[in-house]
């Protein structure tokens, strides 16, 4: 564990001592999520989203396991079994809406979590592996969400499966064979549905495992913080429990309230109406679009419209779509600025917000049919997306003039209180506990 001043677990009663010398699980929890984990004291609300993402996964697993008891993964009855859950299973409608809306919320939370990491430079040394494990989780989530969407076996399920597995057919020579292998046939059918159900059940637990690694990797250097300055001593940290457990509980309350509002009052607002039509291989929907959380990547996929350098346009799109995520694995080595937090990087901060806007507009464009002006817009923004990470950021990190950093976290906290006048007079001299 990281800091020498971390509180050590002291077993109190007989039973605690008995367990501690045999299976020190309480000691483990104490060090991971309890008072034994010293955390920077200046974490803002954006640092709630890691815990929120973990809870969102647990909600998906619990609702999903119960839905799995009533769902039937067979093309002739899959859609009916979903409607059976909605109509005849006690509380089934609530479970299913929680699961469907929960996927959207999980992604929303994870996107904020990722952008938080981008803004505060949480991918920089010594947290590169932590960042990369996060990206692995993100990729697993995307695969899981896609396959879960297919299970409904509505129109958009079927055609989504056809389109996404069709991406692999763009690979030269072996592509069509790979698509057939993935689908277990020449088009999405029962074999596809069955394997997707199996994998959709498996991958969340794999994700859970990677999350444990993610938290493990987090606990080695400890959490980053809004200043990006390293923890210097005990005055910079507070124990995770009770401080951040209390803050996370409040954050969870806000999250669940918003979640409940959508689940109970607008459960279908985030979905596609076409998926309430049973899958029909003979009728293609007018606009095939994935769920909103894939839209930016869908826009990138469709942005490449011309063959170039003997590579067909479709393959360019597929390469670019995968590259748009995979390049994030190299981010710690692309952005070489020694300053982590964008709070002290004025140019990089401005570019961060430009990038956020670009991703949002790419998302909007990705949700639209492939018509002008959306195609042109996707193309320009896709160019910017790649330029941002591969060209602009490496250059900026090299030449940018950064602002002076505070000497320590507690100094930054004191300066903030002094500015807002929210500190008791006389308390300025001594650092807060």
């Amino acid at each position, binding site marked *: 564990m990281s800091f020498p001043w971390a509180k050590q677990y002291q077993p109190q009663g007989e039973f605690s001592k008995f367990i501690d010398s045999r299976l020190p699980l309480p000691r483990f929890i104490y060090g991971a999520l309890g008072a034994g984990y010293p955390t920077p004291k200046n974490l803002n609300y954006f640092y709630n989203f890691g815990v929120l993402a973990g809870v969102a996964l647990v909600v998906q697993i619990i609702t999903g396991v119960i839905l799995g008891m009533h769902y039937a993964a067979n093309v002739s009855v899959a859609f009916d079994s979903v409607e059976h859950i909605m109509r005849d299973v006690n509380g089934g409608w609530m479970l299913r809406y929680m699961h469907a809306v929960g996927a959207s919320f999980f992604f929303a939370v994870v996107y904020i979590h990722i952008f938080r990491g981008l803004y505060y430079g949480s991918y920089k040394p010594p947290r590169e592996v932590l960042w990369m494990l996060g990206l692995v989780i993100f990729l697993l989530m995307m695969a899981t969400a896609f396959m879960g969407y297919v299970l409904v076996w509505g129109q958009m399920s079927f055609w989504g499966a056809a389109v996404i597995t069709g991406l692999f057919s763009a690979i030269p020579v072996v592509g069509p064979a790979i698509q057939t292998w993935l689908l277990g046939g020449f088009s999405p059918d029962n074999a596809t549905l069955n394997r997707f159900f199996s994998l959709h059940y498996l991958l969340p637990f794999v994700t859970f495992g990677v999350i444990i690694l993610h938290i493990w990797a987090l606990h080695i250097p400890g959490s980053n913080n809004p200043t990006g300055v390293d923890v210097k001593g005990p005055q910079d940290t507070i124990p995770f429990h009770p401080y951040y457990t209390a803050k996370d509980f409040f954050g969870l309350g806000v999250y669940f309230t918003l979640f409940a509002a959508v689940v109970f009052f607008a459960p279908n607002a985030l979905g596609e109406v076409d998926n309430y039509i049973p899958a029909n291989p003979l009728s293609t929907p007018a606009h095939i679009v994935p769920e909103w959380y894939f839209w930016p990547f869908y826009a990138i996929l469709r*942005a490449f419209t011309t063959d170039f350098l003997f590579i067909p346009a479709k393959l360019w799109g597929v390469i670019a779509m995968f590259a748009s995520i995979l390049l994030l694995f190299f981010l710690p080595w692309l952005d070489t600025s020694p300053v982590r937090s964008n709070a002290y990087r004025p140019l990089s901060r401005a570019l961060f917000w430009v990038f956020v806007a670009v991703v949002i507009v790419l998302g909007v464009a990705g949700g639209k049919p492939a018509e002008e002006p959306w195609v042109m817009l996707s193309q320009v923004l896709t160019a910017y997306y790649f330029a941002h990470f591969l060209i602009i950021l490496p250059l900026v990190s090299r030449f940018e003039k950064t602002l002076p950093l505070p000497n320590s976290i507690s100094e930054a906290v004191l300066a903030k209180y002094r500015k807002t006048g929210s500190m008791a007079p006389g308390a300025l001299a001594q650092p807060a506990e």
Partner: protein
Amino acid sequence: MIRLGALGLGLLFVVTVLWGAIQPRDAVPPNVVEELHKHPQEIEWSFNGPGNLGILGTFDRAQMQRGFQVYKEVCSACHSINRVAFRDLADLGFSAAEVKAIAASYEVPSINDTGEAATRKATTADKFPLIYPNEAAARAAQNGALPPDLSLITKAREDGSNYVKSLLTGYEEAPKKWNVPDGLYYNPYFHSLNIAMPPPIAADDQVTYADGTKASMEQMAQDVSVFLTWTAEPKLEARKETGVAAIIFLLIMTALGYLSYRRVWADIKKPKIAPAE
């Protein structure tokens, strides 16, 4: 080295995608369908509650029963509601005996004592039977068109409840520039503008309501749209009730969570006082 590679790769992607961007675009002919197509009207529904916000709201039982009557006497000539069971009709305010009687008035496929295909009277556990045994039969009878099952129609169309009512009341004379093929009808709310369904609600008093409500075309369309909203989302009322309770609980829990958070952090964040002047 990584940055050099990134620069090269970045330039490659940028050039490729922008090369596509500067290609001349095919002139898109003006899309007449898009121009004539109308978005569903915004209609006030009792199940959307105050302000039509969708937060509160319940189904009007009498209205649902009227809507069911319209379905039975008009729509069911071609459209099934195969996901709805007769027992579900209790939600409409029918008594157990009434539900039983309604079920008994339907024939459902069965197998007789000697194993041959036959029909029997439906029980409350049965679902509403299909109108046509299969798609081919439906198309053969409907001049090639397939009347969709209506169980989920208000969830399977954008802005569903508004859409159904707008469509039912939206038939009109086609504009001069639009050609309607024989056997189809012009309806600006339909995605392709040409719908195979003849205007189903064609005259006032097409049905005679048992509760004495005047059966105007507008009224019948409204009633049946409410009924079809229920067939698509039979748990709507339970959902909203649960939602209100859940939100109240969560707000209280969150407020308590906030207070305890402030309390726990009191020694970290000193109480706010005005700066000494």
